[in-house]
């Protein structure tokens, strides 16, 4: 069935040339590159403001495909215009079907979770035939790492700095974009992570069978914003999956299935402590309550999922705290 059984099946053809200006070790680039390889060359990416916008700095492009930068809030609407134009022109006989393109929205989490959410909702509800790839690095990375709707509890960002008065950093919760999207019942939604490449390739392949919205949220490790050595980009991604922080799952017409079950969850600490954005949770004194609450959220998520889907999982113990 699938073309992608092991890592050896990773496609060799390159559609992105080297020489881009992204940070060394950029997780989003790992994801974009894999997507492009599976989708092939006949693609037009529709982009909203974010780190990857600067892949295209005049007069250079790494793309061997087409790219349309729209605006921060409306990349899905930009995709709508291109898709509709190609459709009506093919219907009127002014464009040949071999000239057709796959339309792929690619934005960061700021556009996907915040300013462009309305536009995405509209595109899904209208049944637009497109792919949406969110490279989620859990903050506005391009402007210096300010908090976004994707920022998790406990993360330090440029606008949620941990201080004496607020030692936790960001105290809200990461929006569940997967569930927001799923409430629209599109044909396909998936979460992916660069560490689990075969899972990612298969999901893109699966999505391609569907007509309509095909939506992806990609874990995008960010050495610059998260504060870790670029060489650890894939390791951090693996830890996120193994600790249960980043569940790998898909939804087909609203029905959810986890595609990888980390049978014995590693404690979230193992993921958190590698990143400067969570350093304040460990030093100068360890914030047991905050860490425990992160662990508890992860545990609850997986226990619920295990119940719904009937798999076994061993969660990690939250740190126990003696009452004062």
């Amino acid at each position, binding site marked *: 069935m699938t073309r992608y059984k092991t890592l050896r099946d990773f496609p060799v053809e390159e559609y992105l040339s080297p020489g881009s200006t992204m940070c060394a070790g950029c997780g989003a680039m790992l994801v974009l590159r894999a997507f492009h390889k599976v989708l092939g*060359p*006949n693609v*037009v990416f*529709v*982009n909203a403001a974010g780190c990857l*916008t*600067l892949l*295209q*700095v*005049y*007069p250079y*492009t790494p*793309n*061997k*495909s*087409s*790219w*349309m*930068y*729209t*605006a921060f*809030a*409306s*990349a*899905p*609407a*930009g*995709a*709508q*215009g*291109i898709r*509709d*134009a*190609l*459709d*009506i*022109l093919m*219907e*009127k006989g*002014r*464009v040949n079907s*071999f*000239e*057709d*393109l796959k339309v792929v929205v690619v934005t960061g989490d700021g556009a996907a979770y915040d300013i462009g959410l*309305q*536009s995405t*909702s*509209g595109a899904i509800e*209208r049944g637009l035939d497109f792919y949406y790839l969110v490279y989620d690095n859990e903050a506005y990375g391009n402007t210096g790492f300010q908090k976004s709707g994707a920022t998790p509890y406990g993360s330090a960002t440029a606008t949620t700095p941990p201080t004496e008065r607020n030692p936790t950093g960001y105290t809200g919760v990461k929006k569940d974009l997967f569930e927001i999207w799923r409430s629209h019942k599109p044909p396909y939604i998936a979460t992916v992570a660069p560490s689990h490449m075969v899972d990612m390739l298969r999901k893109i392949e699966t999505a391609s069978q569907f007509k309509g919205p095909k939506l992806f949220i990609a874990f995008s490790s960010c050495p610059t914003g998260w504060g870790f050595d670029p060489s650890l980009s894939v390791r951090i991604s693996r830890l996120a999956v193994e600790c249960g922080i980043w569940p790998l799952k898909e939804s087909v017409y609203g029905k959810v299935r986890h595609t990888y079950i980390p049978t014995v969850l590693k404690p979230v600490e193992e993921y958190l402590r590698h990143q400067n954005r969570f350093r304040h949770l460990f030093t100068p004194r360890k914030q047991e309550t905050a860490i425990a609450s992160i662990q508890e959220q992860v545990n609850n998520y997986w226990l619920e999922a295990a119940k719904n889907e009937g798999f076994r999982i061993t969660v990690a113990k939250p740190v126990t705290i003696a009452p004062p």
Partner: protein
Amino acid sequence: MREVDMLTGNVAAAWAARIADVDYIPAYPITPQTEIIETLASWISQGLMKAKLVQLESEHSMLTAAGTASLSGARVFTATSSQGLLYGFEMLYNIAGWRAPLVLVNVSRAVAAPITLEPDHNDVLAARDSGFIQLHAEKCQEVLDLILIAYRVAEDHRVMLPVIVNMDGFYLSFTREPVYIPSKTDVEEFLPPYNPPHPFRAGRPVVKGAAVLGGHIYAYFKHNIHESLLRAGDVFKEAAAGFREVTGRFHSPVEGFLLDDAEYVLVVTNSFTSIARKAVVRLREKGVPAGLVKLVMLRPFPSSDIMEKLRGRKAVAVFDQNISPGLGGVIYNEVAAALYHVKNRPETLLSAIGGVGGKYTTVEEFEHVFHMLMHPEKTQPGKPVFLFRADELAHVQTALRLAGYTGEET
């Protein structure tokens, strides 16, 4: 279909889109524009028109889809008003910068707050620096004609810029009057198919909207928009000549009315021009050498036509149905700049602001402006005259009282 029919400005706009054989109509409702998209939606669903109409979730998205569809090779028509234009505002600059030659009808409506429905031109004039060509209509016929001419100008490879065709809400949008509808064959003769040079197609990769860092490259492209917009003025005249051949109707960027020997001239735009015409006729009957200049084209600003039409006049007033708070009338200032280098420029240049928020401007008010031109010693140079009548002020005072306003804080 009748050759001439009673049409509202909105339906005239829809007819123009229909006979221009547009491919794509991204839409979003807003009063007083909604009738345009409803009419088109109904035609498309009846199979009377082969196009795709999609209702987006906001004007911002609507304009984004309009731009990218245009870049993909579709002839695009869309429409909005007021708050909608402002909600999608950043996309206006983008569409112009992308060189997407679509046509956007703006049905003018004053901008909140306070929120209202009636027209003034603060909405459309806010877009004057966006790189759109702007054509403003006085009559329902002009709405239809200007849209057709707009496509030809916009899609000309010497221009490749979008157009806003403006009509006043209510005074045109909901007003029916006889409108000639050209036949489809006439339009085909006048308007060649849209053929952009670099649409998105498989096998022809292209990046559009790339970031440009380094001010000089940005400045170069911005200048190219400016240069192309200026060229659009000449292309418009060519297109208008072609349009006359096919339809017998003529349009020019700047129109004169009873101008030949006029000493006192009023500069106006949009639907209130009709009322101002009547003032001119009444003054002529009394022997006053009054005349009128109507600006159809606001961008590119037709400076040389204005210079030519206003040079040597004794006194000129510019009627602005808009207000730039802290400055005055927008068009007044542009006309003043155009006249600065004219040797025998009018001695008096008066700014009259009226019709703000759709406030009716009577023929007497227009006549009053002419009287001020005849007695400039009674006006303060440079200070705009705000056309506001005593009975209107009395009305406002009643309303203030009813609203419980006492003039005191807290």
